[in-house]
């Protein structure tokens, strides 16, 4: 690669600036240090002179100084008005007094609510799910980050196992089936027993699913790197025996959830369970259709591919997460969902329209025109469930906005909801014919899928995890790293997607214009691919913080706490006395 050109790229300049900042700061520090040494030397000289003067001080002068000292130190006793009696608060009105002992660089957010009773076995299961999910998030995005770097530095390595075409599906599948799916299922193991008001039917089944899915992702990743894949359909790169493990995992957990719901002690089935159970049923339908190993010749493959990839994101990830949202959002805001019936409407309309839109990935292709038209109409129809869902969530927020600034979980919810609205509607806009001309085949699709899978799904999942884990373990993550996770992920996502969308729009227009050669459109994208790598790095960094936070929330070690509230002090005293008795 030519180095001459690169330095005129704004992205490189900014990177260089970022590198220069610590150097500049270091130089400033050196100058300040040197100046201090010089000052010290001069002061020493002055002090010596002053000491000479002190030796010659007369008694009179000393007396005058003492007199003045006494006058300056005069102060009131602070109880001139209150008197000497002790204050009492018989009704306990004064509570949660925050004392400012030091400067607060980080605003103190509300602590997690106290832990409800959850069977310790279930707690352990859920933590295992979320732990594995966190691992796959780190693994998958590390691969993603590396793949993104390859756009800027294509010759970074020449190993077949690490080549772009093989690693790309490793990234997408690991974050889909490893991270998001495991996190969703783990959270469902929390939600379903809660809203059914009874313990989960079988904890063992939960572990079986966990093992099956982990095996599937491990085998799938290895196969892909070794060059064994299903043949080019996106998100369908694992061969069917590998995906079958995943499918069996979902089937047995679905049965487990269904049994729990069937025995529920509540009369109604809470809407969360509608979404979750349906997502699992639909995923199985989708997977069986897409993976059945004896059909899909010719264009049949493409039609099923369009159906599969879009139902995969819409009916599995989106539907599932909406279900979780209907449970966690009201609970975090401590009020019921704004409209139960809007949730139900969104549910049915989503099934009706979402199922139709698969082929919008193949507009203007050889697929029958009527099918393409149905897909475009369905995409437009998606406005209804998206607007219904967003309205429902935002109206639930209404009147509780003040809670946002005092909570470290709610910002994740809000960003998830906002991207649910913008990301989904962007998908609708992309399906129109003109936008399809400009954006199809460009990186706009990549930006869109990150806005949605990352902006919606990941942010929601993080919000849920930060809500649930402290309740399970009683330990909270450090606020500063949660905040850093949030901001790095958000800013990283914007750095990732916005330049990519801008650049790919230019690229699409260049293709339409038809007066430039293809390779010029590759050159055009170079700075935007660099921005993508920078944004991706920030996102990746935020995942490390998330993993750290998760570790803090689940680690066994108990921190030594000195009791401070009257209640805690009394408890501590009681415990201590009991110990003495038993000893």
């Amino acid at each position, binding site marked *: 690669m030519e180095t001459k050109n690169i330095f005129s790229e704004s992205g490189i300049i900014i990177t260089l600036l970022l590198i220069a900042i610590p150097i500049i700061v270091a130089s400033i520090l050196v100058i300040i240090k040197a100046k201090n040494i010089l000052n010290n030397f001069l002061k020493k000289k002055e002090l010596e002179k002053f000491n000479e003067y002190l030796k010659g001080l007369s008694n009179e002068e000393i007396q005058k100084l003492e007199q003045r000292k006494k006058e300056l130190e005069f102060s009131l006793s602070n109880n001139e008005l209150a008197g000497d009696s002790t204050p009492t608060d018989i009704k306990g009105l004064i509570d949660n007094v925050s004392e400012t002992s030091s400067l607060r660089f980080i605003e103190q957010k509300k602590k997690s609510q106290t832990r409800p009773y959850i069977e310790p076995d279930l707690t352990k299961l859920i933590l295992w799910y979320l732990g594995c999910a966190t691992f796959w998030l780190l693994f998958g995005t590390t691969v993603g980050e590396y793949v993104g770097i390859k756009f800027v530095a294509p010759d970074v390595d020449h190993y077949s196992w690490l080549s772009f075409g093989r690693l790309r599906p490793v990234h997408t599948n690991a974050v889909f089936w490893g991270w998001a799916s495991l996190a969703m299922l783990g959270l469902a193991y929390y939600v379903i027993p809660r809203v059914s008001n009874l313990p989960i039917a079988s904890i063992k089944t939960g572990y079986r699913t966990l093992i099956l899915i982990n095996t599937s992702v491990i085998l799938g990743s290895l196969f892909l790197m070794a060059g064994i894949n299903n*043949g080019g359909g996106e998100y369908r790169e694992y061969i069917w025996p590998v995906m079958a493990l995943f499918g069996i995992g979902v089937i047995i957990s679905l049965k487990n959830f269904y049994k729990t719901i069937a025995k529920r002690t509540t009369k109604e089935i809470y809407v969360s369970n509608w979404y979750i159970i349906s997502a699992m049923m639909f995923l199985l339908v989708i997977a069986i259709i897409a993976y059945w190993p004896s059909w899909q010749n010719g264009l049949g493959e493409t039609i099923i591919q369009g159906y599969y990839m879009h139902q995969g994101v819409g009916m599995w990830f989106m539907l599932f997460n909406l279900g979780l949202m209907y449970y966690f959002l009201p609970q975090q805001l401590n009020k019921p969902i704004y409209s139960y019936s809007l949730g139900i409407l969104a549910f049915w309309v989503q099934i009706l329209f979402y199922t139709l839109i698969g082929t919008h990935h193949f507009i203007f292709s050889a697929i029958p025109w009527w099918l393409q038209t149905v897909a475009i109409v369905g995409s437009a129809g998606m406005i209804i469930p998206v607007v219904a869902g967003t309205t429902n969530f935002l109206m639930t927020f209404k009147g509780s906005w003040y809670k946002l600034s005092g909570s470290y979980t709610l910002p994740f919810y809000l960003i998830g909801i906002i991207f649910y609205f913008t990301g989904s509607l962007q998908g609708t806009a992309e399906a129109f014919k003109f936008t399809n001309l400009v954006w199809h085949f460009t990186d706009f699709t990549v930006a869109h899928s990150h806005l949605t899978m990352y902006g919606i799904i990941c942010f929601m999942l993080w919000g849920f995890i930060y809500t649930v884990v402290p309740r399970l373990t009683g330990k909270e993550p450090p606020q500063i790293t949660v905040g850093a996770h949030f901001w790095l992920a958000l800013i990283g996502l914007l750095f990732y997607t916005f330049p990519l969308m801008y650049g790919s729009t230019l690229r699409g227009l260049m293709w339409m214009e038809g007066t430039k050669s293809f390779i010029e459109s590759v050159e055009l994208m170079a700075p935007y691919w660099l921005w993508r790598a920078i944004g991706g790095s920030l996102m990746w960094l935020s995942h490390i913080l998330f993993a750290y936070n998760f570790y803090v929330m689940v680690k066994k070690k108990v921190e030594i706490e000195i009791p401070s509230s009257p209640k805690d002090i009394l408890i501590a005293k009681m415990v201590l006395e009991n110990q003495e008795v038993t000893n």
Partner: protein
Amino acid sequence: MEFFDNHKTLFRTALGLFVGLTIIVAIMPAINNQENNAPLPNYEPLSQEAYLGKKIFIDNGCVACHTQQVRNVDMDKVWGSRPGMPADYAGIDRTDFWRNTATLMGTERTGPDLTNIGTRQPSLAWNLLHLYQPRAVVEKSIMPAYSWLFEIKTELGEKDVEVVVPDAYRKGISGRIVATQEALNLVAYLQSLKQTPLPDGKTPMEFLYKKKEIPVANGNTSSLPDGKLLYTNNCMSCHQANGEGLKGAFPPLKGSPIVLGDDLELFVNIIMLGYDARPEYAVMNAVGTDNNLTPEEVTAIINHEKTSWGNNAKTVTPEEVKKIMDFIKLTSKK
């Protein structure tokens, strides 16, 4: 409502609605397309080599960046002479019991579409070098280098195909770089990618969203198409942007006696029919005929080559070129 409080009816209804719609928009159309389409009569199945090459194409996930579909929109005209149709894919069956059908239509064009690459760039030498190190032939390319499809030998065997790699990209390799059978298979697959011609008398679907033709001012020279763009699209990958070619693979056009000379017939002949007269360079394919270049386009390319990179020769008119091309057509038809 009673209905919503019964888990059996609720979930059955949801599943029924989903499956019903799925049958209408996915299963039925898929079966219909699978059963009712046949390959075109001129369709040539893949050779054994190309078939194995396709597997390499699949294994390495090339579809992540390369589509194989010409949409019926004007901007896709550069990728094929007609829009793709169901028959184009009808000859593709399941790879095997374990792996699905690979139509390889793709969803992203980080790199160029490959529907017709066998016509556009059939040169074996170019393809091998490009696979070994794409940046050796296309400087700005970001395609991965597939150097593991090649081996280093001290001496060439009888059937070995050597790749002449420019020194800058040899990275200290002193031996001879030889294509493995896998690399040859992959190139065979790429060479096989051509749009099947329609049967006689059938007109292809039209490209939609045609650009409005901008009326050109009178005068012969200004009405010629953009020679530089045509050169970039048709010639540059071998002869390079600076016209200097690649040593041992593609001859320079800068200072070339053919480009600068007056033998227009030979010049047009080479562009239209290819050239294999010089053993020190790779075979040139029939770029002009393969890509259906018009006399105006050929003239524009010739004039661009005659006047660029320090070349300074007399330009030619489309009329002269057309005469020679008509003659070529006449003689090559026999």
